């Protein structure tokens, strides 16, 4: 077995038994990066020098016994490029930030650093996390390792592709409307969007602040649990982080799911969804029943309004958040004849088409005369969507759905039609609007050998139930063990 294909817990065992060194592991990963990155294009920045420096420091700490235990010591991870890493380029895959070196560290990665992780590189994404295919990157198009002519999903397509390609042991992504779960599903890996407020957003470049969350993308559920234990928890630097205690998520691993109630929302099995996806997901539900879960049909009646609600709210928040890119304090500046001309030149040159489109849409929705009709209306529908979940969770413990209506689509297939692209998030978006946690795990493959994802949704701050069910399913199946031939 190659070291680069290890999971976090497998690498931990070998490191603890001194069978390998941190540098062996890092070296193996860069050998893999050198072999496949040209085809996959998952990284915006490869931090080779920093990684070997971090590995050196960690090994010194191990030798000097200042750092003896911890699941993440010496584990190489990739980080999505909208998460600030001090002293390292953080571009959000945007030309407007192509030279931005973060002067501070995000809370999530600070916690990884405390635990002794090694940064392999920063991963490609749709510019400012706006997209579902990673084709909106200002720099490059990331490929799906299962089929290089297909998209990896998005916006965390670089992170998901890097994990599936074994270019890192695991990764962090961010999820505003499905940006962790959908690429995880399309790349055949595990992706968790925590409850809104569970993980600090400090240092996550803001797209839609009431929806954004950082979360793990990993090769299996156990690794997601390991990362969740580290990145979760209250942070005084993020006033929207929840002041709640964090359970030890490892406690759920191996718990049986007998008697747990899983809800199957009828609105998620609709005309037009891919037949193979439907068959795999229904098969997975049967599998969960055979493990003792009780499936119940539930209704989330406002599901059909989620995409419209989301694209009003997310673009409105984005148009406000992205006002900061004015060429004055950081990033690109394109001089003009006066201040306003400089602003407009800078933004016209720095932003790509999808970002401009969303800024326009959000500005429109918030502009005088339209605010009530769009923004306030969408906020009210958001309440209805949230209540749908509250009602369903009075009856069931976990909700099960497909993660995405189709497997990975072809490069260029949806890029010319933004609305079609937006509709590819149809099963993931409600989760962000309601603020509840959701995980995607592999549950099958199409006849073209493309991965299919199963989504499990939980109550607010009940990541434990979805992790418990996800782990039980994973133990009973082999899907997560398949790797692409690269």
């Amino acid at each position, binding site marked *: 077995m190659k070291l680069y294909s290890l999971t976090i817990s497998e690498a931990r065992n070998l490191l603890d038994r001194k069978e390998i060194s941190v540098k062996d592991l890092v070296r193996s990963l860069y050998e893999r990066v050198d072999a496949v990155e040209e085809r996959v294009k998952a990284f915006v920045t490869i931090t080779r020098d920093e990684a070997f420096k971090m590995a050196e420091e960690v090994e010194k700490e191990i030798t000097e016994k200042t750092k003896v235990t911890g699941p993440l010591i010496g584990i190489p991870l990739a980080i999505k490029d909208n998460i600030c890493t001090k002293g390292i380029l953080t571009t959000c895959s945007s030309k407007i930030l192509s030279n931005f070196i973060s002067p*501070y560290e995000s809370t999530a990665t600070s916690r990884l650093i405390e635990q002794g992780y090694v940064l392999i590189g920063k991963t490609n994404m749709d510019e400012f996390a706006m997209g579902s295919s990673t084709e909106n990157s200002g720099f490059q198009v990331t490929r799906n390792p299962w089929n290089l002519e297909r998209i990896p999903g998005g916006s965390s397509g670089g992170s998901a592709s890097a994990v599936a390609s074994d270019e890192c042991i695991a990764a962090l992504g961010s999820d505003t409307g499905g940006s962790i779960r959908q690429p995880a599903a399309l790349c055949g890996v595990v992706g968790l969007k925590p409850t809104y407020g569970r993980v600090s957003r400090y240092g996550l470049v803001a797209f839609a602040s009431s929806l954004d969350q950082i979360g793990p993308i990993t090769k299996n559920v156990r690794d997601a649990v390991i990362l969740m234990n580290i990145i979760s928890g209250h942070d005084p630097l993020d006033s929207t982080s929840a002041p709640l205690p964090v359970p030890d998520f490892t406690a759920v691993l191996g718990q049986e799911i007998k008697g747990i109630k899983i809800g199957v929302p009828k609105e998620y099995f609709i005309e037009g969804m891919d037949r193979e996806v439907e068959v795999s997901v229904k098969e997975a539900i049967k599998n969960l029943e055979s493990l003792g879960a009780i499936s119940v049909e539930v209704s989330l009646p406002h599901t059909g309004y989620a995409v419209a609600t989301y694209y009003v709210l997310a673009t409105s928040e984005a148009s406000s958040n992205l006002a900061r890119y004015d060429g004055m304090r*950081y990033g690109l500046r394109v001089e003009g004849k006066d201040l306003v001309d400089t602003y407009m030149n800078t933004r016209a040159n720095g932003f790509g088409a999808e970002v401009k489109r969303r800024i326009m849409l959000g*500005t429109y929705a918030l502009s005088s005369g339209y605010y009530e009709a769009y923004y306030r209306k969408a906020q009210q*529908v958001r309440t209805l969507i949230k209540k749908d979940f509250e009602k369903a969770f009075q009856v069931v413990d976990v909700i099960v759905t497909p993660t995405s209506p189709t497997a990975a689509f072809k490069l260029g297939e949806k890029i010319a039609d933004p609305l079609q692209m937006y509709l590819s998030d149809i099963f993931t978006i409600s989760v962000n609007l309601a603020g509840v946690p959701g995980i995607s795990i592999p549950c099958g493959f199409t006849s073209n050998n493309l991965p299919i994802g199963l989504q499990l949704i939980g109550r607010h701050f009940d990541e434990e139930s979805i992790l418990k069910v996800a782990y039980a399913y994973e133990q009973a199946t082999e899907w997560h063990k398949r790797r692409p031939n690269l």
Partner: protein
Amino acid sequence: MRISKEEIEHIASLARLYLSEEEKELFGSQLSSILDYMEKLNELDTKDIEPTSHVLPLSNVMRDDTLGYSIPRSDALMNAPDRTDKFYRVPKIIK
């Protein structure tokens, strides 16, 4: 709903974006069809429904008024497109 070219230009100016003629054309038609899709929301009666701006029951999060860490000036200025020793340098604002 068809968004006029004037409307597109007005929104672009609010958003501080220069758009090319092709972009105005393209965004005009794309925003029109996206907004048509959003009309869906009007099928729902939302009278007396409270808007949700945020899912957590948190408001007015306060902290003690004590000195904490802040980013050193040199770090805060390190990405500036134009600067002096201590300040950002920006185009003239007051005419």
